[in-house]
């Protein structure tokens, strides 16, 4: 019974703070290491479709991709981009977010993290280059897809290419778009902007190295993309 009580306490803390570490909560942390508590937590893991990751004296609660109870819902995530944001803007913002992850963690060495920081100007140039390439090579293909599904990849790229890099008074600029994405990442304790550089937090580094990039997750990710089809 005590083990269950400890497990619930740990779960409660993880739900509110996302992580539990030895420095701030030595008592609960040592209880986490107890075998019976681990058993109880395994039940919670299964029932709530989540995972407890233990690394570097810290325990993280990671919602599963299909976790409807603990994971952020698409509509909630969409609202992050502002209530007036169109779906094309949400798509563009989300693409930029994933592209930032790609820039940081697509290393082929033992450690996937390949850069220490990403300058906003470099990110803008990379996105410009990528979109230009995509637009020129797959215009026909995208148009065809748009006709069928009304998807908005090309429209998102048009939004991007029509934006100024930066402007004193204009709000809709490439720089501000990236700033908004970084704001979301900062709220989620994943990355932040400092002196026009994007830096990742150790939380993101650990989640990426320990879990997110694991080959076993490919099928889940593919599934999420597939289910988007009409």
């Amino acid at each position, binding site marked *: 019974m005590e083990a269950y009580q400890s497990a619930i306490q740990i779960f409660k803390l993880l739900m509110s703070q996302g992580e539990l570490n030895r420095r701030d909560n030595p008592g609960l942390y040592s209880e986490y290491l107890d075998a019976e508590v681990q058993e109880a937590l395994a039940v919670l893991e299964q029932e709530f479709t989540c995972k407890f990751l233990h690394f570097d004296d810290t325990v993280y609660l990671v919602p599963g991709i299909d976790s409807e109870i603990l*994971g952020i819902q698409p509509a909630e995530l969409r*609202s992050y981009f502002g209530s007036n944001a169109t779906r094309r803007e949400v798509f563009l913002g989300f693409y930029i977010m994933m592209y930032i992850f790609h820039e940081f963690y697509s290393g082929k060495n033992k450690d996937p993290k390949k850069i220490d920081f990403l300058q906003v100007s470099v990110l803008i140039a990379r996105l410009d280059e990528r979109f230009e390439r995509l637009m020129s090579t797959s215009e026909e293909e995208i148009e065809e897809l748009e006709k069928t599904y009304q998807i908005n990849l090309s429209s998102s790229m048009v939004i991007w290419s029509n934006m100024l890099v930066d402007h004193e008074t204009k709000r809709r600029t490439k720089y501000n778009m990236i700033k908004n994405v970084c704001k979301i990442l900062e709220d989620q304790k994943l990355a932040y902007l400092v002196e026009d550089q994007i830096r990742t937090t150790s939380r993101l580094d650990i989640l990426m190295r320990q879990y997110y990039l694991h080959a076993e997750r490919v099928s889940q990710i593919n599934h999420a993309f597939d*289910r988007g089809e009409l």
Partner: protein
Amino acid sequence: MYEFLDKFEKRMEWLGAAHSIINRKGKKTEIEELFSENQLTGIIISVLLFIMEKTLEQNNECDMAAIESFLSELLFTYYTDGLTQQQIHHIADYIVKSILQNNGVSYTYPVMNYNKNRVEEVTIRLISDKIVNDSNGRKIVYMLTNQGYDFLFRLREVDEEIQLTIEQLKLKEYIKRKKFSSAVRQSVELITYVRQKKREIDNFILSIRQNIHSVDIDKYEALIKSTYSMLEEEYETMTEIQNMIYQAEQRIKEEFKENEAFTERLQKARQEVQEIHHNIGVVITEQRDLIINRRSLTDLYMDTIRKSFEFSLEKRYDFEQVIISALESYSGSLDNYLKIVRSLFQPLYSKILGIPQIYAPQIIIKDEENPDALLIPMEEFDDNREKERIRIISERYVQAIGIFIREALRTGEAALSTILEDLKNNQPELYEDLKTQRTIFMTAIKLYDMGTLHITDFFEKSKRVMMTPTEELNVEYCLVKLQDMIPELSHIKEFSIEKLKAPIHDTISYQEGELNIIENIEMSDLLFRVVM
């Protein structure tokens, strides 16, 4: 293998560091062109030396502002005085981020290892950085890496470890010969060297924490063995020197009593000995700190190595292929793709445990009530509809500015509160329309932000204006549109806005789906004034 080629890779590492500076990757021609050949190389080394100097000073952090200010002074005094602050900012940025940090990407230099008969990629990283939080928020501070120190010391052709011992010997000799002034200088040098060692350890701990894979096991062992054994020896030598200082102090005291005629000289000697005494104390304390820290560094290294194995052996998928390309060719119109980020985001519990959820994000409730909302409405992709929406917004800006100017022209000056009251009473429909998305209030605030508009100047200069309606306020567009509606417009020299003390209160009400929303507006009243 030839014996003289032993540890060839170590020699080449030094060349790699030089190569990273001399044959800079990612050259920016607009900055390179500002200097004659090889001039910038000298400037980069000067910046490196500055970073070293700053990092060796206790409690001093080298941030971008400090580098910029140093560079500004250096360029102005020794190179060229024709650069603007903006250019200096770009140069500093280029030197630190693009060259010394290689835009955050690891810089490697291929080196032949004759022992292993293979080419190895040696990582070159002369400076590292860390984020510090101060009262102004986050900032980045830069410091030299061990490799950076090594490189700079080799440039002076002095091996730091020999140098430290030489400095100690020199100090001993000075004290023996009662050359206290030189000994003071020597003791200060010793503090510098030991602090540098301390920085090396700090840097090493930082690199272990940041990325264990960037840490070379040989370097770790060399650092542990050489630094600590050397420090332990030095710790003993320094205690010896401290005893010598005590004795010197005693002798001076005795001499002081016996020989009052040389008071001034002795007084100086006594002060200097006290200063040496203090400096040696600092060196010993810092050395002791380092020796005590030895265990924690070893623990940290071993622990991190052990943990790194846990993940480094796992198979990883190709991020570009699985996520980026999938997003690029995503053909679904539902939002399911957004779920792929779930595992990285914080767990969201408010929906199940929190009452505020009921009130806060209406958007969620709408989506849950009506799953069809997840389908993309066709009109969102209709260009004409989008253009029409922007035209209406743009037209509101023109109308709002037109009203402000007309009212100010009529009476010389007009308060926003009076304008709103008039509109409300005489043109209620227009009043409600201009309040949509807070247009009239936001336009007034933006005009206040812009300061005085010099309208005559604007028309006289016949500046080319893009006549496309925009979602954002474009004052130039509005003025050109208003030219035909307000004949006196081009004669207005100045149109200015002042803030008044009294506040304005207003409300905006509108419907969103089945929801009635009321927004309360509270802002300072503004006064519009024209000068003809």
